[in-house]
């Protein structure tokens, strides 16, 4: 098991390595002097040069990369130019918010998506199944921000159940906090659920046709039991496989949703950092995101290995 996880970790390293190297290279190779850009037009050449020294931009590229690696590994990610604080201090509070919203969104996506997908599969061809299938294909065609806008129109402006924007931190009360993140989480989750629904439906339909289902029927096992015990066990595998990508998609979408609802999460942080050319912060966010995605994928792989031990033996499953 440990060996399996070790191999998976090695395989996942590029997930953080490639974007980070990309950011590193782009920063140093892109047109324009980063230091000059950071200081603006009014800077004197000496000031620019001084900053270059500080940032180590005058050394040879390999040397810079070496230092960069060391920095990354020791979590010496520099300071945010505009917030004046070390990057490693700034990120966690924003990260927590994003993670919280993403978590709720994931729950919504899974519950809604698996439900819709199962409906589409078990009632295939019948009206309920057709509607479910149609809903999911429309669902994957609607971007999260449109879903968010629709939710705002219906629930906030229309029914006044929620407020638009205005994030309430946990410290000010559990319920107000939840109310402020409900719509963003819903928007994100509903948008994601469509993909989950499609995968679920396809997976279940594939499994229903497998011969072992016929064997179960020949034993007189009730259809509901066949579905819940035998079919789900196998049909769930592709869903687990894709959860890693789901999380990445959620993180992507959260950047957009946070902007709409004014949530101080990683997406907003990144957006601000980008517009202010706060490179250290951008780098930090990229690193954090990459590491987080790797961790999630590892957990998913671990869970998958537990559920389907065939994977550890190196055999292909389904």
């Amino acid at each position, binding site marked *: 098991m440990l060996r399996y996880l070790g191999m998976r970790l090695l395989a996942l390293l590029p997930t953080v390595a490639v974007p980070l190297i990309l950011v590193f290279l782009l920063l140093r190779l892109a047109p324009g002097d980063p230091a000059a850009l950071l200081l603006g037009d009014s800077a004197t050449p000496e000031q620019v040069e001084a900053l270059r020294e500080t940032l180590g931009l005058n050394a040879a590229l390999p040397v810079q990369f070496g230092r960069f690696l060391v920095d990354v590994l020791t979590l010496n990610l520099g300071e945010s130019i505009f917030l004046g604080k070390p990057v490693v201090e700034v990120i966690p509070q924003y990260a927590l918010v994003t993670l919280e919203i993403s978590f709720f969104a994931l729950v919504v996506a899974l519950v809604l998506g698996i439900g819709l997908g199962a409906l589409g599969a078990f009632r295939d061809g019948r009206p309920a199944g057709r509607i479910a299938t149609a809903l999911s294909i429309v669902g994957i065609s609607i971007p999260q921000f449109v879903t968010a806008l629709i939710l705002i129109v219906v629930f906030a402006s229309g029914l006044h159940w929620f407020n638009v924007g205005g994030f309430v931190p946990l410290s000010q009360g559990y319920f107000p906090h939840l109310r402020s993140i409900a719509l963003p989480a819903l928007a994100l989750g509903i948008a994601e659920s469509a993909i989950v629904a499609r995968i679920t439906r396809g997976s279940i339909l594939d499994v229903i046709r497998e011969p*072992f289902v016929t064997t179960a029927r020949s034993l007189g096992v009730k259809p509901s039991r066949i579905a819940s015990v035998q079919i789900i066990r*196998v049909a769930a595998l592709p869903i687990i496989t894709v959860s890693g990508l789901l999380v990445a998609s959620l993180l992507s979408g959260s950047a957009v949703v946070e902007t709409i609802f004014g949530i101080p999460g990683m997406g907003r942080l990144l957006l601000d950092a980008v517009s202010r050319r706060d490179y250290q912060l951008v780098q930090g966010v990229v690193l954090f995101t990459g590491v987080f995605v790797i961790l999630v994928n590892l957990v998913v792989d671990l869970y998958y290995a537990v*559920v389907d031990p065939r994977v550890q033996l190196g055999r292909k499953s389904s």
Partner: protein
Amino acid sequence: MTAPLLDIRELSVTASTASGPYDAVREVSLEIPRAGAVAMVGESGSGKSLTALAVAGLLGEKLTPTGSILFDGEELVGMPAARRREIAGRRIGFVFQEPMSSLHPILTVGQQIDEGLRAHYDMTTRQRADRVRELLATVGLSNTRDIVGDRIGQLSGGMRQRVMIAMAISCEPELIIADEPTTALDVTLQRQVIDLLASLRERLGLSLMLITHDLGVVAETCEQAVVMYGGQVVERGDTRTLLHEPAHDYTKALVLSIPTLGDTRRRLPTVASVAPWLSDTRQIPLADRPLTEMSQIAPDHWVRSTTAKDAA
């Protein structure tokens, strides 16, 4: 004579295809006596599997049975699903052809056999576990290591087929339908499985419907045989009679194509892919041809006439 356990009368199975309904099985009639063994012989596509599935109630959505299947006096065609489920497993057991795909890939052996027991008996977990071990012993799987916790991927082909048989007999059925149980196995395993089925039949008093295209197995294990072609029964009756005095051209061709010890023929005859009366230049599809008559030529021997009726 006591009533047969299984009495099929004029069973037809119609498939609804994109180009209209198609009769894959046409007016099949046969009987299986209690504790008797009947073989269904025929090439691929002859309808033998569909007939078996119809008896077991396992036809897919697009296949509709018509006619009559009497099982111990109860009519199976049109039976409500709930009652069907009571019979499946408990009174009719099914052994499938390909155990690798017909058994659950992830659940353990014990869990899978357990499902059948749960469906029909009110036993405690401990009782079920005991029964599972009992069953595995019955099929000869107790001398090897304890496989209750294994997944089927960890078992050999022969062991998998035995597990399948254990599942089929788990709820003490009266009739076992075995759909080409040996086709996927090599010769030595075939021997073992056939012997197992024969001994189980004796010990448990089972009736057996054995689907196969291996005439050697038929001769050994089944007192009666039904020869099918093109969805129809072309000949049926006592096995010995069928093999030694075949009445239908198709059966004759089948028997002739078996090589025997001391065979001096240089080329084996093959069965022409078109039966004699089908070699009609107008090439009417089999399903559209009028059925010829089935006549009894001996106490235990029925054959379908090969002379075509007046052209449709």
